[in-house]
């Protein structure tokens, strides 16, 4: 029988603010609801949510640190969704991940990414010169494609109404995606810009729960955006990026940023609503299942605009069951997707999603998050689901009637 000792001033619970919503671990009823809803479902391994909560409450940090759960957890808060006391797993795991004894568990890729981002400004190490070169080249192509000399992919345009914050992949392996987004802005007939000073919507400080890092990364976005004097920051389709910039920034930097934050599907939907952007759903003459990214949906309350937009881009939106606040994680959350060694694990966590897609009987799935997009693509291949995966904004771009 292993005997565990409660440490004095245990790290995790001591760092929680008992009066703060979601951090009220003391009030855990030990009801077990969390365990039953974990995105790992009945797969081997993975976290046992109640155990984590109870161990943290009892001051048994070592048990948590040694359990491996810290980086198995998807930070999806599916467990939290069912918690009668609203205790938030991502907060608890977050504190665990930043535990001094757990530092060495941070996946190598994530450590590297954090370092590069802090040094260079982009998680993939894209320098300012490379950015400018890439964007200017893309802009030339864009003029041709649009057959309109006015069509641009502007950057560092002060006083633009919108600033678009891309995902690093849009400036690396997936340049076409950036062009597709540019097309959407073009169709909106609004002034918009990119910024050469911040090219990255991600904030991996959130994954490692290092507040200092997360704060720095948030400021890397906020300050240049404020200097450009934009009204609204439009985020690329990125779950955790949205969650951090939309819901955590104020707490991280200690003030409200001087602009609004929306995601690109919301942006497009606004212009569809006011009649400026026109979409032709016949471009995708099939039914598409909508996947709720945990970070957008459950964790940031964004449910309807991307769905509404998807409905304008295909024959019919199919709801996966369960969905919305009860939606199932794609299996790549919490930094797992960002860790290239995690593939075998992600094919366990992705099983429930795969089953869900199979049950829906669809050929297409769409998600407003590039991480989910990648994970969904991988599970489709792994489980031979034969479904095509896309993002919402990218589908919208294809449906544009110009």
């Amino acid at each position, binding site marked *: 029988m*292993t005997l565990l000792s409660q440490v004095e001033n245990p790290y995790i619970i001591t760092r929680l603010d008992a009066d703060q919503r979601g951090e009220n671990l*003391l009030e855990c009823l030990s009801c077990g609801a969390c365990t039953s809803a974990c995105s790992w479902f009945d797969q081997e391994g993975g976290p*046992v949510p109640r155990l984590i909560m109870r161990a943290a409450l009892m001051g048994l940090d070592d048990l948590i640190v040694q359990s491996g759960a810290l980086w198995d957890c998807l930070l999806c808060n599916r467990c939290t969704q069912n918690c009668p006391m609203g205790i938030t797993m991502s907060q608890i795991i977050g504190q665990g991940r930043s535990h001094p004894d757990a530092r060495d568990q941070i996946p190598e890729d994530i450590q590297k990414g954090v370092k590069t981002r802090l040094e260079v400004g982009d998680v993939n190490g894209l320098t300012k010169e490379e950015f400018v070169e890439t964007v200017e080249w893309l802009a030339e192509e864009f003029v041709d494609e649009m057959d309109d000399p006015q069509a641009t992919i502007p950057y560092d345009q002060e006083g633009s109404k919108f600033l678009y914050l891309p995902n690093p992949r849009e400036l690396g392996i997936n340049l076409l995606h950036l062009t597709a987004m540019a097309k959407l802005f073009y169709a909106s007939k609004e002034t918009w810009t990119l910024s050469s000073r911040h090219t990255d919507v991600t904030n991996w400080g959130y994954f490692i729960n290092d507040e200092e890092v997360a704060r720095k990364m948030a400021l890397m976005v906020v300050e240049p955006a404020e200097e450009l004097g934009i009204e609204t920051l439009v985020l690329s389709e990125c779950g955790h990026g949205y969650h951090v910039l939309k819901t955590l920034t104020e707490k991280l930097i200690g003030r409200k940023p001087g602009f609004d934050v929306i995601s690109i599907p919301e942006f497009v939907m606004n212009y569809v609503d006011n009649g400026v952007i026109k979409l032709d759903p016949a471009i995708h003459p099939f039914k598409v299942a909508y996947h709720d990214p945990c970070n957008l949906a459950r964790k940031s309350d964004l449910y309807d605009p991307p769905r509404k937009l998807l409905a304008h881009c295909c024959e019919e939106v199919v709801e996966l069951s369960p969905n919305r606040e009860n939606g199932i994680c794609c299996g790549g959350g919490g930094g797992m997707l960002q860790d290239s060694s995690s593939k075998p694990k992600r094919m366990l966590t992705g099983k429930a999603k795969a089953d869900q897609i199979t049950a829906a009987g669809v050929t297409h799935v769409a998600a407003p998050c590039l991480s989910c997009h990648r994970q969904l693509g991988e599970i489709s291949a792994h489980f031979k689901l034969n479904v095509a995966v896309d993002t919402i904004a990218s589908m919208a771009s294809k449906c544009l009637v110009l």
Partner: protein
Amino acid sequence: MNKHALEEKTVVVVGGGVAGMSAARHLAQHHINVHLVEKSPTLGGNASLWACMATDTCQNCGACLSQELAQSVANKNGISLHLNQQVTAIEKNEGSYSAILDPDSPPLKADHVILASGFSAFRPDGLLGQACDAHPGVITTNQLNHLLTNQNLDRFLTDKESPRIAFLQCVGSRNREKKRDFCSQVCCKISLRHINKILHMIPGADVTMFYMDLQVIGKEARTEFGALKDNIRLVQGVPAEILKGNPDNPLTLIHENPDSMARAASHFDLVVLSVGLHAQPGTAGMVQGLDLPVNDWGFLTNGIPGSSGQSSDPGILVAGCADGPKDIITSVVEGENCAHRIIQSAAEASQPSDPFPVAVMGDGHAGIETAHTLSALGFDPWVFGQGHRRDLPATLNNYIPDSRVVSVTGYANQYLLTYTAGDEEKKKSFSLSCRAIILAGEDQFLPAGNDLGIKSDKILSLEGFASTLDTDPEMIPDKLAFWQDFSGPESKQSSRQLLLLATRAAKLKKTVTVFMEKMLVHGMDGQRLYDEARKNGVKFLRINTPDDIQAADQSDIIQFTVKEVSLKGMAVSVESQWLILPDRSVPDVYFDALADLVNEPLDREGGLQSPNIRHRLTGSFRKGVFYTGTGHDDVTPDDVQAELLNICARLWELKHPQDPADPGVVINEKKCAKCLTCLRVCPHSAIRINNGVKPAIVPEACYACGLCVANCPALAIEKTDHSDDEMIAAIQKGQCVVFACQRSAALAAKTVFENGTLGDQDCQVIEVPCACRISTGLVLKSLARGPEKVILAGCHEGNCQSHKGSSEAQDVARFVNSLPGIRENQSVFWTSAAANEGGQLLNIIQPS
């Protein structure tokens, strides 16, 4: 008493469930005009939809009382029924009220309003992930009741031999996020009864119960749970999601693996959601114009604990679940209590003050409270001490601390107690004539045993700790441990006290740990106390059995090793300087003798009072004998107040008898052989002996059950309303004859007659006051008329108002069947059927 004062009164009762019906019945008995408003087309409320939980014996759920109440309310003079009507608002003008109705009818004017609008069962639509809304295998307790009443459960389980059934507790309760952070109080007990019933019907059933804290509380609940727990799987932790599977494993729940620290999946054929009791949505709106507080959950609240029935408006009373979840029998009693408050206030002025001595047995908390309450209301209590208290207030003049009651004779309104009192040497005999007896026995609270090897100066009782906290808080060390169920099942009162003390200590910045097998939150205030304790940092560690904790006394600290339930295969060490243990509550040693004295049974746990639902909460088989205090139930001081109100209501009946008591049973002196069989058999001690030899029936005590009629060997006892011959006169050849108890089977039969399933020509139902009235002679006489068969039908064992009616009738059936010459096809059957078991009875009458 001024009957006019009452006849001039009008009361609107909102809600035709058990509480409302009980209030209406009681008011009408006292000639008060009643408007009973019910929103649905029938009376009965939620309880009428519940299935009978009886197995071989009644489980005392109380559901069948709703049929009986509905029957008596529907036929009662002075009650105007307003069915299909909803009260939308209550207006107050100068001391009187009007209830506004929907659909529109003239408002009902009244002097008082009783709000008995009940609860609404939680509907978990879409709550639990995929399966809940659509899957036929996921049902609520209500749907399970429906399946049981309609005898459809088997079919539903597609005849599986050992169906896997899961019960999920606390669905819709105890959830702060969903703004329903109260314990619904009754659902644990309901599920345990359901499980018991299912195991009885399907012995192979594989039942798992997922719970948060099992509220095993109430009369005989521990015994019932004890008998059940080894036949089911108990899992602490309630899954919040049900996953759909394949035809072999239709439903899956994920939970903690009980043996390892991992998640595990279990498969089920049926999942029952034990849904909580929520406020009736209309209640809050109804009282909007009045000054009645409604709490966050939509229940009425007056903030006065133990004030059964009162609201903050003196003209408005609240009965049943309108102010929070309660069980059926408590709701019935509250209805009666509300009615009594009105009757009492109306009659107050004209109250004559002739002496009304009442013997109170017991000088613990309940005894003293009883004495105070009774004297305040003009009764004359005599307290017979059991050595609990000696420091009684001087206002109680009739207190005999060291008494021994030697005998109790007589009957309601005329009891005679003989007792001895005084010092050992100078003991003298006395006697007291009194009109009622209240058994206010208290459990013994013994210091918890200390077999942990801890030095006794580190172990405190709750009381001891409380007094240190009051007087010497600086004496209290930094680390404290409480052990909630150390002394066996804890009482409701001690868990409340423990939570309060642990919270106070935590507020003094002490490190407080509570070990527990479960927390008895039981109700709304209990959950609040528990929440408050956790919020203040009290840590609750859960164990499965007491063996999960080892303690080592190490000079200045106690080192505990605790196998917390979430740490499978591991243990956590906890240090504390003091260990605080609740006392052990056990039935007191004198209960046996006390029950004997009044000729009343004990319950299965050695507590006072039978669990028979017909006489609970405070009554007995014997009119004029009542119970209160921890000796008969797990009560808190607040509960005792409510019990006392109920006792006072019944004493009031004794003091102001409504109709001249005429049970219609007389002993024909000429025929009487003076064998005293009647004296021996009467279950209600209603036979008195005149002149040393002549038995006579005491009308005030007689329940008119007819057992003496059936048993008198000289056939000297006659029931004036129904002779044997009158009863059987209508029997026709070839008919099926059912002798049916008026409180159970006859009501059940009515439901099948009413819905046309059964016609008069098929079946002759003969109502009897109690199954014990069905004598051998009566059966033989009826057989002589050539019926197809004769069915004797009465209450389930344990449910009979007259104690043994069912077993008496069973004996008669057995005996008649053993007689030579009883033809095979004309034999006599016994069956038990509760008032809510029309379908089951029909199956016996006409087997399909």
